[in-house]
């Protein structure tokens, strides 16, 4: 475990990481130019990533950081972002296929007008109820953190903003 952490720390050094990220972007760009739709080749990487995430949860420090109530939404955001990137790229690829077949994007085929009442108001009402339920359940299970009263004479170590 320590060995793996050492490798990750070395790779995550900002100088090295930035160079690697630029390199990966260039390689990806060159690859994508030749073959935009074929993404199945990348799939084997997914189980590997899932395994590394799962193994990381065995590390007590990692678990402590991830399950801190204030950090839970940040972790959630990572998964949401991955999901929405996948979703938007999927829509884009589908539209690319349609354009390649000479059909134009799917948005052109329909009128996107709906009635405010009842369509929009119903959707908004249901979203409101769902969000309230999620928020109440979230609030019941995770307590908002509150530290010791403010004391200008006691600088915590490290004194840095939590974000």
């Amino acid at each position, binding site marked *: 475990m320590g060995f793996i952490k050492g490798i990750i720390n070395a790779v995550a050094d900002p100088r090295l990481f930035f160079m690697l990220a630029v390199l990966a972007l260039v390689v990806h760009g060159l690859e994508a130019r030749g073959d935009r739709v074929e993404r199945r080749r990348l799939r084997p990487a997914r189980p590997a990533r899932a395994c590394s995430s799962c193994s990381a949860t065995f590390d007590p420090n990692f678990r402590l950081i991830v399950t801190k109530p*204030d950090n839970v*939404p940040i972790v*959630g*955001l990572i998964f*949401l*972002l991955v999901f*929405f990137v996948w979703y*938007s790229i999927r*829509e*884009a690829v*589908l539209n690319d296929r*349609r354009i390649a077949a000479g059909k134009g994007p*799917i*948005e052109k*085929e*329909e009128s*996107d*007008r709906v009635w405010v009442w009842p369509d929009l108001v119903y959707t908004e009402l249901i979203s409101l109820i769902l*969000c309230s339920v999620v*928020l*109440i359940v*979230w*609030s*019941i299970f*995770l*307590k*908002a*953190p*509150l*530290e*010791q*009263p*403010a*004391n*200008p004479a*006691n*600088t*915590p170590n490290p*004194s*840095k*903003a*939590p974000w």
Partner: protein
Amino acid sequence: MFYYRPTLEYAYTDIVGLREHVPLGIMREMHRWGAHAMVITVWLHMFRVFMTGSYKPPREFNWSVGVIMLVLTLLLSFTGYLLPWDQLAIWAITVGSNMARATPFLGHEGPGAQLLRLGDVPLIHAADDARFALLGGTFVGEGALLRFYVLHCVGLPLGIAVLMAVHFWRVRKDGGISGRSRIRV
């Protein structure tokens, strides 16, 4: 606002009371997690707008309004951070507000601040710069707590409410929500 008093004496105990004495006891949790959810939603909304190309004309004005509202959302989070008046609050705001020292011209450590002087008298110094205006003092104390409270409960919400009205009005004027299709391919 019914249970909380923004003073050094009461701020922290009122927050504890909000958990211990107010019915249901999850008001503070709802506020905090709701705030997190709002920031996440705003980012995801921005992401969607970007991915669907909805920042392009005729919606470029609305995109700019949205970016201002993103900043206001983050400022709401920032000002709300101080109000519990615990260790995290005071030191996070101390670090965060120190950035205002480096404001160009208006921060006493910022570029160009040295140029603003009358003869030998500097116009911008530690007790008269952007950070001082933000904190109402040279350190995070009672003045900062009151200013952040007023900004959090009055100033920023008013600003964001006006911009939200403009935002929704422009959505209608610019041809409605743009987005993905309702028809599955």
